[in-house]
């Protein structure tokens, strides 16, 4: 049964909470730091064999022939599979459902409207390789070494084709075509907003500022590379996959589609996941391949990506070319905004989330009455892109917060005053923006004031002088952000309260480091009025977890707490009926408070566990597990986490070296369930954004189309010693959309980080003539920008 919950809650009174809101240490940490985690590669089965992929060395090449005769004869080799074998066996394609489709998503379409051509994702291609690192054949052997040896002897006759890595080049006339079905590579082209109103506002504006920002491609590099263990049980006809992801349930359905089997015949197991950041949200070809090979060979098959393979074939992030225009009147009031957002989807469409989520947020936290966005996308011969921490939002917030800074300086406004003047105020909440998207709640101006105070914004000049004396320059930056948290709308909880005094909560979200076992237990315990240590959170096995949307888009805490709340409300009604029956009184004569059911005016009382014991007893020979409830809900209303960041950077203009010396983040994540966990998320989230601003880049050689940042030697991942000690604060405005008032943490700080850091660097260099710096602002880039500005 699905309940569409009443959307207007009075957020639960703060006094009701004992554990929620406290910095409870994560209960999963002891297990994880003592090597007791259950990551995919920790699972091994008797008779297990190893799969290795033969990957394309070309960005674009026709596959004329694959000769594996020699390789098949090599020691330990069990099988070598190609795209033709998949086709002959009737395998399907991975249906990624890439188009965001909740009720609040803007509907992306193909150019001219209509269905989007996604570029079918077969487990192995038969026609062409479309990016370096695409799997072309799979070798299965007794040992990893034997599989690698044989893979070196699989001869693929490639016919190299012209390649294109850059979306701006891919849309030009005469660019190489990635899919014959879409000759000009433009697979999505949709406009949103009110063109006439926007044009009119621009026509009447006193000032128009225009800028273009390439938001470079990055990759998530989770500590645990992707891995898969496939098994097939001949007797039952069932497949079992161990694979780390953001939610086993979705993967189960999509893998079933790729194998052309009934989803009920697939079991997906996913316990601990060593980092995700979006890259593990989507199904990989190896997941289907190990299952299929396990059936064909009759033995369990394991795949474990190397770091090198991960750099080439993990779904990557960002890669948006955004051109924006801001119209202002003479006193600095924002009048209108235009954006053209061109997404590089790579070789095929795995997800349009980055494009779709960014488009309606291009106007960010500001009151901009008229706006228009063109959201379009191009195929290129690169690894597909996918949602990456705060999918789509840092891109558009970067453009907005950069253009506001630029406008302030070109037109002579104070950048803070210009922001303050145009920010949506708390009185205007809920606020509907120019794209019809309603921001649920927030107090943006208060967040800004908190951040300015924590950053000692006004004390900047003195600090800057001191830094100058050391031969360096100090710059300061500010950025506001609002982001959206939507995600799959359905979630389910199965709860059992046992006579033994334990509460089990089965839930369909999937932690990949966020501490759900702790925070969900805190919520459950407070809503039941019991101790959090009595609660066990269960996830990650599709035979137990029947439904669930997984963890993405900041949905987990909000959906899980809402489902837990709904389950407990239902259970209370049942428990009161049970107590009334036992005591032989009317239900109205029973009150509930603080975990106890009490006879009004009488002495009799039950707690949850006593009722569970009664329930078990009454079941007789039946189900003696205690009080049980299942609850599913659907929640389509998005929430809008928001906040801001301020930072200072020291720049060495001689070398281009940048050091972040101060970083303040103020975030409204709605109700903070566990401030320790949210702070940890904030820290990581800032580092994610700082990495993109300063170092990270999936760099493609302009001469050969080869990805050159293929290892940590060239890919600049942020490190702890490069970060200052963060100053963080919450501006907790509970969301009215769900009972706990949850918004979301963990992605907001990334959203602001790109812009705030680049704003600060540009501030430090403005009098040298620098008014923008492309990301990543590596020392080389900063030096080059200064040099270019000096002419």
């Amino acid at each position, binding site marked *: 049964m699905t309940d569409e919950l009443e959307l207007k809650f009075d957020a639960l009174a703060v006094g009701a909470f004992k554990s929620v809101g406290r910095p409870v240490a994560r209960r999963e940490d002891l297990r994880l730091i003592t090597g007791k985690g259950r990551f995919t590669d920790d699972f091994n089965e008797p008779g297990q064999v190893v799969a290795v992929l033969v990957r394309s060395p070309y960005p674009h090449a026709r596959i004329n022939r694959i000769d594996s005769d020699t390789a098949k004869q090599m020691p330990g080799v069990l099988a070598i599979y190609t795209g033709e074998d998949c086709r002959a066996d009737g395998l399907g394609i991975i249906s990624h459902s890439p188009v965001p489709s909740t009720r609040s998503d803007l509907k992306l379409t193909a150019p001219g409207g209509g269905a989007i051509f996604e570029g079918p994702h077969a487990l192995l291609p038969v026609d062409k390789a479309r990016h370096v690192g695409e799997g072309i054949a799979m070798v299965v052997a007794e040992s990893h070494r034997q599989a690698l040896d044989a893979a070196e002897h699989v001869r693929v006759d490639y016919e190299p084709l012209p390649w294109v890595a850059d979306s701006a080049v891919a849309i030009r006339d005469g660019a190489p075509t990635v899919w014959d079905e879409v000759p000009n590579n433009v697979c999505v082209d949709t406009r949103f907003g009110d063109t006439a109103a926007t044009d009119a506002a621009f026509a009447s504006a006193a000032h128009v500022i225009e800028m273009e920002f390439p938001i470079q491609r990055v990759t998530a590099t989770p500590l645990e590379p992707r891995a898969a263990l496939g098994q097939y049980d001949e007797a039952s006809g069932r497949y079992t996959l161990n694979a780390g992801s953001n939610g086993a349930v979705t993967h189960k359905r999509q893998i079933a589609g790729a194998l052309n089997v009934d989803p009920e015949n697939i079991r997906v197991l996913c316990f601990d996941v060593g980092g995700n950041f979006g890259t593990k949200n989507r199904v990989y070809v190896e997941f289907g391949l190990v299952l299929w090979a396990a059936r064909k060979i009759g033995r369990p098959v394991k795949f474990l990506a190397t770091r090198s393979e991960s750099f080439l074939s993990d779904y990557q992030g960002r890669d948006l070319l955004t051109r924006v225009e801001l119209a202002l009147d003479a006193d600095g009031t924002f009048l209108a905004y235009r954006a053209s957002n061109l997404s590089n989807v790579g070789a095929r469409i795995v997800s349009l989330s980055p494009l779709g989520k960014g488009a309606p947020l291009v106007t960010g936290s500001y009151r901009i009455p008229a706006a228009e966005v063109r959201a379009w996308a191009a195929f290129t011969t690169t690894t597909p892109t996918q949602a990456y921490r705060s999918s789509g939002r840092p891109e558009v917030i970067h453009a907005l917060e950069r253009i506001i800074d630029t406008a302030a300086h070109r037109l002579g406004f104070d950048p803070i005053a210009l922001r303050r003047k145009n920010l949506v105020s708390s009185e205007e909440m809920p606020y509907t923006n120019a794209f019809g998207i309603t921001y649920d709640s927030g107090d943006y101006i208060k967040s800004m004031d908190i951040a300015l105070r924590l950053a000692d914004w006004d004390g900047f000049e003195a600090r800057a002088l001191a830094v100058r004396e050391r031969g360096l320059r100090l710059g300061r930056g500010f950025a506001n952000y609002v982001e959206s948290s939507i995600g799959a709308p359905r979630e389910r909880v199965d709860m059992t309260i046992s006579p033994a005094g334990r509460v089990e909560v089965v839930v369909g979200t999937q932690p990949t480091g966020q501490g759900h076992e702790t925070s969900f237990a805190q919520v459950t315990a407070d809503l039941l009025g019991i101790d959090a240590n009595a609660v066990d959170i269960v996830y990650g096995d599709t035979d137990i977890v029947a439904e669930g949307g997984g963890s993405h888009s900041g949905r987990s805490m909000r959906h899980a707490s809402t489902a837990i709340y709904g389950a407990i409300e239902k259970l209370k009604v049942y428990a009161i009926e049970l107590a009334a029956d036992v005591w032989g009184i009317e239900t109205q004569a029973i009150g509930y408070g603080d975990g106890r059911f009490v006879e009004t005016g009488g002495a009799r009382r039950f707690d949850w566990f006593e009722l569970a014991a009664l329930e078990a007893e009454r079941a007789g020979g039946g189900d003696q597990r205690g009080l049980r409830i299942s609850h599913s809900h659907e929640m389509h209303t998005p929430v809008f986490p928001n906040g801001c960041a301020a930072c200072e950077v020291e720049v060495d203009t*001689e070398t*281009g070296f940048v050091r972040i010396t101060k970083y303040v983040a103020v975030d409204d994540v709605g109700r903070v369930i566990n401030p320790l966990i949210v702070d940890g998320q904030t820290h990581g989230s800032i580092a994610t954004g700082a990495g993109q601003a300063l170092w990270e880049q999936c*760099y493609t050689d302009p001469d050969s189309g080869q990805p*050159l*940042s293929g290892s*940590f030697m*060239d890919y600049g991942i942020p490190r702890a010693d490069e970060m200052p000690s963060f100053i963080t604060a919450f501006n907790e405005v509970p969301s009215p959309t769900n009972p706990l008032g949850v918004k979301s943490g963990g992605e907001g700080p990334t959203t602001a980080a790109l812009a705030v850091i680049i704003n600060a660097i540009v501030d430090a260099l403005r009098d040298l003539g620098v008014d923008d710096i492309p990301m990543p602002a*590596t020392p*080389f880039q900063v030096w080059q920008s200064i040099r270019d500005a000096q002419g």
Partner: protein
Amino acid sequence: MYPFEYVRPASVEEAIGLRRADAGAQWLAGGMTLLPSMKLRLAAPSQLIDLTDVEGLDEWSIGDEHIVLGSMSSHRRVAEADEVRTRIQALSTVAAGIGDPQVRNRGTLGGSIANNDPAADYPAALLGLGATIRTSQREISADEFFKDFFETVLEDDELVVAVSFPVPRRAAYLKFRTPGSRYALVGVMVAETRDGVRVAVTGAGPGVYRATQLETALAEDFRPEALVGLDMSPDGLNADMHGSPEYRAHLTGVLARRATAQAIACEN
């Protein structure tokens, strides 16, 4: 990795004998370069001759004019040794700045110079300080030892035994790190030795080299001011995502100036 044999000789003679008997064999020192290349299947030695137990390779001899460090000295040992710091602080700086603690615990002086990575630090230290490399066959000056790009004059069966560093009057090493790898994008050793001023540059070109233009200027006037306005030529320098030849040339000048100032400041 491909399969290989593993042996652990006890003497230089034995190690050389093993190497001569197998053309595909390689010495294994700290393994911090060789093992990752083997794991990536970029190197496939038939045999690893582990030098850990070879007698004499970790011996030091410390004098006032020279310090001699055995080839198996780990970066960590060199970085932490007082007898190195008090005589050639720039050398401690070099060793302390290599990689991370794990790499410094395993990686060795001999391995680093034999490998001659174009961005490695020790080659700049040896060339800048005018060191002499003692091998199982001969003594080679640093000026002759390093060739281009991962190449040295070492014969296949020639083992680095030790390196002798003359104690300079003053010296300093500065490296500007590449984001990501943290290897030198450019590293500069500036030294005023008993035989004159030497400036060695790593990271900027296809191999370590001496910046004679800077040496000449500093020989006349060993002050950072002497280098102001010197335009370094980008010709032949590396171009990649981390820096253009012009940027590397520019950094060379900046680092040389700063290193000179530091050498003067650290003078004891």
